[in-house]
Structure formats: structure tokens, C-alpha cells
């Protein structure tokens, strides 16, 4: 591809973005993020998603969607420096938070990296316009972290593939449009060599969506049951049986959610993933003041600790992204940022719970925000599980960044059908 036009300077872009945002994007009312998922009715959730589509469309119409996406596919063809500048400018404005993850990354990132020209032409512009929202059909009920052990199977039938199996932990599959799906296309070779990736429409006969109720009442996560789902071969991403090459990059892009993805629009200083929609321990300062706790050294230490972790997290995100950009570190170092956000969110949740005390386990209507600290504590480990567990991140850091010996596997050279598996549990 030739690219002979002169790229707009970051300064000029920034000035243009500032002006455009002021005239076209609504200011945030509160924190700019959704409040408690558990407090949302389905109607509110759908209204939120519709609002999100509208915000994404505004960015597209204004020429600020897909800043690092090539112009051929509806983007702006600019650089990460432009995206970073935009992320600084969009602070204080509403933005399409739900589009960022997993639609823009990892899904669009994977399509841009592995899709054919036709596939990119067809799928990337609707994403940037807010018309299609994507989900990851990756985890399986029997799989957990071992995503390459996918059991969902695709069998070729002429120009089509027939899919059967089940995927799980898909956020909002009931309102999303498309899915990126990793399936087994060959059971007679070792597990990494028999996988293929497809794009599929979520709402079609043969896909049954079951909403999972989490312990906090959230029903965002879904499990999908695929029965004889027919997908044209033109919706295959990458080569047949070489889906693991796609899958490893897919999971890499997933790890960049915590910072470093060139495609994510997110107000600077705020991670793209909501770690604590209640605003962290710092938001508890007014509560502490009300309770007369701001003279208590122990309370001040806890609030200060939470704030320190947040500042260090921002510094670390920037540092690792820079190390990867300048090739001082392998891109696997994104696992360091992932581990940070998992473990620091856990600590933050514990601090909040400790600060609130008894009000977090039994509360009145007017203290609902305090009660939510208790609920968040129950959900605490989500930050170390979702998006790849912190154990997997620690494997990646020790093996891929520090070069330590890989874990021994028993399934590497065995045809997948002969590999021991969990008993079906759902």
C-alpha cells in the first residue's frame, strides 16, 4: 500500500480534536462510566448500548473513529501519538466505552491483522460507525485458561462450515451483533494444529443464548449453545487448522486492553477496563470525612495506598507501552500490565471493604453506594480471572519475558482426540 499524503501534525490534530469535542460530544455527568452492572435493568442496558452506538457514530462522522486504522477501512490512518493525544483531549467527555472492548480490541485488531482485504472492507467500517458490536467466542465451559483445548467443532460442507458446541463468558452476547469464534476443525492432530477462527453473526437460528447470573446479580455474561450453525467459508479468518496463530495474537490484543492498544479510545489516565466503577478508595474520602475517620492514621494510610496504586498503575502502563514500542521489551510484556491491574484491583477492593466496615455487609437504602463496596468485594477475583487469569500472565512474564523454561505439557504431540479432558460439566 502506498501512502504519499502528509500526516497531520499531532499539534494540529489536537487543536482540531479539542474544538470538535467541545462542539460535538456531551460532557460526562458523573464518572462517565456505567454504574453497577447489577443495578441495571435490561431496558437500561439496551438504552446504554444504543447510546454507545450513537457516540461511536458521532466519532466516526467527526473523523475521530479508528485513528490508527488505515483510511482504506474507514479509519484515519494516523499514529499512536494522535490516538494518545485524543485520549487526553476526551477527558471529561462521554465516549463509547462499550465499543472499545472487545469490539475494537481484540476483535477488530484481529480482523485487521489476519483478515483479507475484502473481509476488512466489509467488517471494519461498520465497527467504526457503531453499527456492529463484537464479542469473543473464545472460552468454553470445559476449558478455562486452556483456550487451545476448544471442543466446539466445525465440519466443512461445501462452501460452508457446520459448527456445534458451546462458548462461555461472552459479555452481552444478547445485545451484540457479531462474534469472533475459535473452533476445532481437526481432531486428529495435536491441539494447537487443528484450530480455525471464524466470524459469525450472533443472532441466527442454531445459536441459543443463555444468560448467566453472577453472584452480584449481574446477567451480562452469556453462554452460547451452537447447534448446526452454518457459516460460509468466506467468514474464515486465517488459514484452516492454523487458527492458533490467530489465537495467540488475539490473546495478545486482549492483554493490551489494560493499556497499550493503538485502537482504544479512552480518557487518559483511566484504564480501558473498568476496575472499580464505584471510583476506588479515593472516592471514599467524603465518607471518611463524614464518619470523622480522616484523623485516623490507619484510614489515611489505606486511602493513600489506593491512590498510590492508581498513580503507579498509570505510570507502569505508559512505561511498558513505551518499552514495547521501542522494542526494548517483547510485546509479551503486556502481561506485566495485565498482572498489575488484576492484583492492584484486588487490593483496592479489599481496601474499600475494610474502610467501609459493617456498612458494607448490611446497609440501608441511602447507603447503597457503601453496600456496593461489599458486593464488589465478593466479586473481587473477577479482576484476576476475566481476560486471561493472572496465573497465565505470570506464566507469560516468566517464560516469554524472562525466558524461563516452559511448563511441561502432555498434549503437545498427541492427536487431540486422545488427550485427556474434563468430564462435561454443563
Amino acid at each position, binding site marked *: 500500500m502506498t501512502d504519499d499524503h502528509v500526516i497531520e501534525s499531532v499539534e494540529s490534530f489536537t487543536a482540531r480534536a479539542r474544538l470538535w469535542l467541545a462542539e460535538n460530544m456531551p460532557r460526562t455527568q458523573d*464518572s462517565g462510566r456505567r454504574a453497577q452492572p447489577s443495578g441495571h435493568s435490561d431496558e437500561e442496558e439496551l438504552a446504554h448500548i444504543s447510546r454507545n452506538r450513537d457516540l461511536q457514530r458521532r466519532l466516526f462522522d467527526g473523523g475521530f473513529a479508528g485513528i490508527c486504522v488505515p483510511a482504506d477501512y474507514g479509519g484515519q490512518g494516523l499514529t499512536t501519538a494522535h490516538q494518545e493525544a485524543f485520549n487526553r483531549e476526551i477527558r471529561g467527555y462521554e465516549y463509547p466505552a462499550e465499543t472499545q472492548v472487545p469490539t475494537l480490541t481484540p476483535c477488530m485488531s484481529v480482523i485487521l491483522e489476519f483478515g483479507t482485504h475484502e473481509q476488512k472492507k466489509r467488517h471494519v467500517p461498520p465497527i467504526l460507525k457503531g453499527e456492529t458490536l463484537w464479542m469473543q467466542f473464545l472460552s468454553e465451559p470445559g476449558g478455562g485458561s486452556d483456550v487451545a483445548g476448544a471442543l466446539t467443532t466445525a465440519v466443512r460442507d461445501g462452501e460452508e462450515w457446520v459448527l456445534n458446541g458451546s462458548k462461555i463468558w461472552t459479555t452481552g452476547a444478547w445485545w451484540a451483533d457479531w462474534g469472533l469464534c475459535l473452533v476445532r476443525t481437526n481432531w486428529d492432530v495435536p491441539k494447537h494444529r487443528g484450530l480455525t477462527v471464524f466470524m459469525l453473526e450472533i443472532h441466527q437460528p442454531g445459536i441459543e443464548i443463555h444468560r448467566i447470573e453472577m453472584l452480584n446479580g449481574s446477567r451480562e455474561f452469556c453462554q452460547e449453545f451452537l447447534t448446526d450453525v452454518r457459516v460460509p467459508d468466506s467468514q474464515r479468518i486465517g488459514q484452516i487448522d492454523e487458527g492458533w496463530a490467530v489465537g495467540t495474537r488475539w490473546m495478545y490484543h486482549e492483554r493490551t486492553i489494560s493499556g497499550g492498544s493503538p485502537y482504544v479510545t479512552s480518557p487518559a489516565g483511566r484504564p480501558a477496563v473498568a476496575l472499580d466503577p464505584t*471510583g476506588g478508595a*479515593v*472516592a471514599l*474520602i*467524603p465518607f471518611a*470525612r463524614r464518619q470523622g475517620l*480522616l484523623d485516623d*492514621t490507619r*484510614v*489515611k*494510610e*489505606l*486511602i*493513600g*495506598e489506593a*491512590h*498510590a*496504586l492508581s*498513580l*503507579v*498503575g498509570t*505510570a*507502569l502502563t*505508559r*512505561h*511498558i507501552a*513505551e*518499552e514495547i514500542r521501542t522494542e526494548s521489551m517483547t510485546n509479551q*510484556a503486556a*502481561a*506485566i500490565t495485565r*498482572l*498489575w491491574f488484576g*492484583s492492584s484491583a484486588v487490593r483496592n477492593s479489599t481496601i474499600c471493604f475494610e474502610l467501609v466496615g459493617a456498612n458494607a455487609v448490611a446497609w440501608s437504602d441511602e447507603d447503597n453506594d457503601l453496600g456496593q463496596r461489599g458486593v464488589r468485594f465478593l466479586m473481587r477475583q473477577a479482576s484476576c480471572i476475566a481476560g486471561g487469569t493472572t*496465573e497465565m*500472565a*505470570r*506464566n507469560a*512474564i*516468566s*517464560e516469554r*519475558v*524472562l525466558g*524461563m*523454561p516452559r*511448563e511441561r505439557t502432555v498434549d503437545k504431540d498427541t492427536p487431540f482426540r486422545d488427550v485427556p479432558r474434563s468430564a462435561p460439566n454443563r
Partner: protein
Amino acid sequence: MFQRNSEQQLFEETTKKFLDTSYPTAKLKELVDDASGYEPAFWQQGAELGWTSLVVPDDAGGGSISTQGVKDLSLVAYQFGLHAAPGPLMGSNVVAAALGRWGSKQQQLGPLAELLSGQAVGAWALAEAPPHDRLGDVALLATEIEGGFRLQGTKSPVEAGLDAAHILVTARSEAGLRQFLVPADSPYLTRSPLHGLDTTRRFARLDFDGVQLPTSSLVGAPGETEGTVNWLTDLAVTIQLAEMCGAMRWAFDTTVEWAFNRYSFGRPLASYQEIKHRFADMKMCLEASFAITAQAADAVDRDTPDRSELVSAGKFYVGRNGPELLQDCVQLHGGIGLTFDHDLHLFLRRVTTNAALFGTPSQHATRLTDILASRGVTT
């Protein structure tokens, strides 16, 4: 650790080579019982390399490598940490920074010039003994007398307090905080050596029993000294942070190498998942420490509004986790890591000592909340 430009790289490389040859760890162990812990000739050579002039303005005789003097100094401090190097890096730089910014012409021509050349050593007497040992607590009294002030109280611990010729003393007066440049040989000033964890550094207790000083020994105007002391604290903590990063880096790299080479039950330590995961946590801690230290140094350089926030976040995080990283390195070494012969303890001493001085991690966490609460921040 930091992004460095080519001048900074060259400067750091020179410092590294100098420390490599001057202070191999065997030499540090020889100096354990030495009164200073370093050789004055080496300190003067370091001063010639620029170690003492980086955070002093040009017109006061100083000069940085990159115009970001604090960052330049952090590179020296990082190398000091990486070598567990001795020498009055902290005291001389903090006093020189203060004199370069707020000192009188006389103070700049005399004491500052001596500090810059490495001929004399500086010490900052800020900390006090319990019950006034919390960060920012100053009880030493400065009473105005005819033609000057009288100092009464105790400062402890003061790094390089015995070696220093010029001591910057932070005191409380009727007009709030004031700072004085006190000659080490002042009458009624008693300096006593303290025991210390860090075998490469020396600390002293300073008793001021009616030390009389002329008005010309004041550094800075009343009313602005509170801010001055805050800035100097942030500078001092930044130096500590960079040193800790260097020492942590040494311990981490050494322990990684050990884990690859040490075999147990027929396989290297580095092949056990339990141990790999601990290295992953340590690696995260190391990179997070580098990241916040670089940000803090940048904020002190540019004197940004969030300067103290970033510095305290750094001191909280690195101060809390640095010693833990070192202890984990000891654990992974086994018994050998607790011996005097092994070098690990030199770095454990450095990190542990820095963690406790100029505000403990807990005190910096408290400082963060005070900053937030005073701003009325709610989100």
C-alpha cells in the same frame, strides 16, 4: 529504567565505569569499619564527573547534562544503587540544591563552591528523634536573638553528619519553618555517631544546645521555607527511589541468573512454576518501581502540580515493595543469601535503609491522603 538521551547515556556510562573500578563489592566490605565508608579522593573525582552540580542552577555554578537535572541526578543515584556505592550523594546534593536556589551570594561563593568541587561534604538535618520522627515534624527551636538566632534541639539521623562541613538545619521559629546553614565546628553543636544497617553509609545524631548563628546563616525567606522544605523532601525522596531501583535491579538480575544456574532435584530452579510466578511478581514490581520513579523525577524537574503526589506514591510503592523484593531474593538464594560473603546483603541494606528514611511508606501514604483531602477531591 528511564528514557535517556545520548548525553545522559554517556554520562551514566562514565559514572558506571567509575563505580565499577572504584567500588567493587569486595572493596565495600573492606570499608565496613572505616569512619566515612568512602574515600574522599574518590568523592572529589565523582564531583569532577558532575555528581554534585546537576541540581544546582547554572548561574550558581552548577549545570545539568540534559537540562533535566533531577533526572540526571537520578541516573547517578540509580548507578549508586546498582553498585551499593558509598559517598555523600544525598547530603551534598540536597544542600547544594538549596544553596543554589535560595542561598545568599556569600553562601554560594563559599560553601556551595566547596560542595560542588567535592572538597567539602553537605548534610541535611531534617529528621528528628521520636516523638518527632514523623515526616514533616520539626521541633528543633530557632529563637531570634540579637543579630541572629539560637538553635536548641536534636536532629537524628543525619546522613554524613560527621563528615559534613556544611549542615543545612531545618528549624521551627515564631515565623514558621526556617533553614540555616550551620558550620560543623559551631560551638555547642555535638555530633555523635549512630549505629546503622547500611554498612556503606554513616549516620549521626546532632545535638544543638544553644548554637548561636548570625542572620547571614539563614537560607531562604520566612514564609517560603515550608514550600522549600517540601521541594527538598521531594528531591531527597527521588534520589532514594532511584537508588532503590538500582539496588532492586542488581538483586533481581543476580537472582534470575542464580535461578537458571542452580539445580535442585535435577532441574533448574527457574523451571518450577511456583518460583517462576514469584519472578513474574518481582518483575512487575521492578518495572512499576522504575515507572513511578521516572515519573516522580520528571515531576520534580518540572515542578508540576502533582509533584508531591507522584513522589509520595513512589515512596509508598517502592518503599513498601522494594524491601520485600530483596527479601524474596534472599529466600530464593537460601542460606547463602544470609551470609556476609554473599553480596546480596549490601543491596538489602541499601533498600531497607532508604525505605525508612525521609518518611516511611505509611507516612507517605498518609501524606497522599492529606494532599487529596486538602484539594477536596472526591473522584
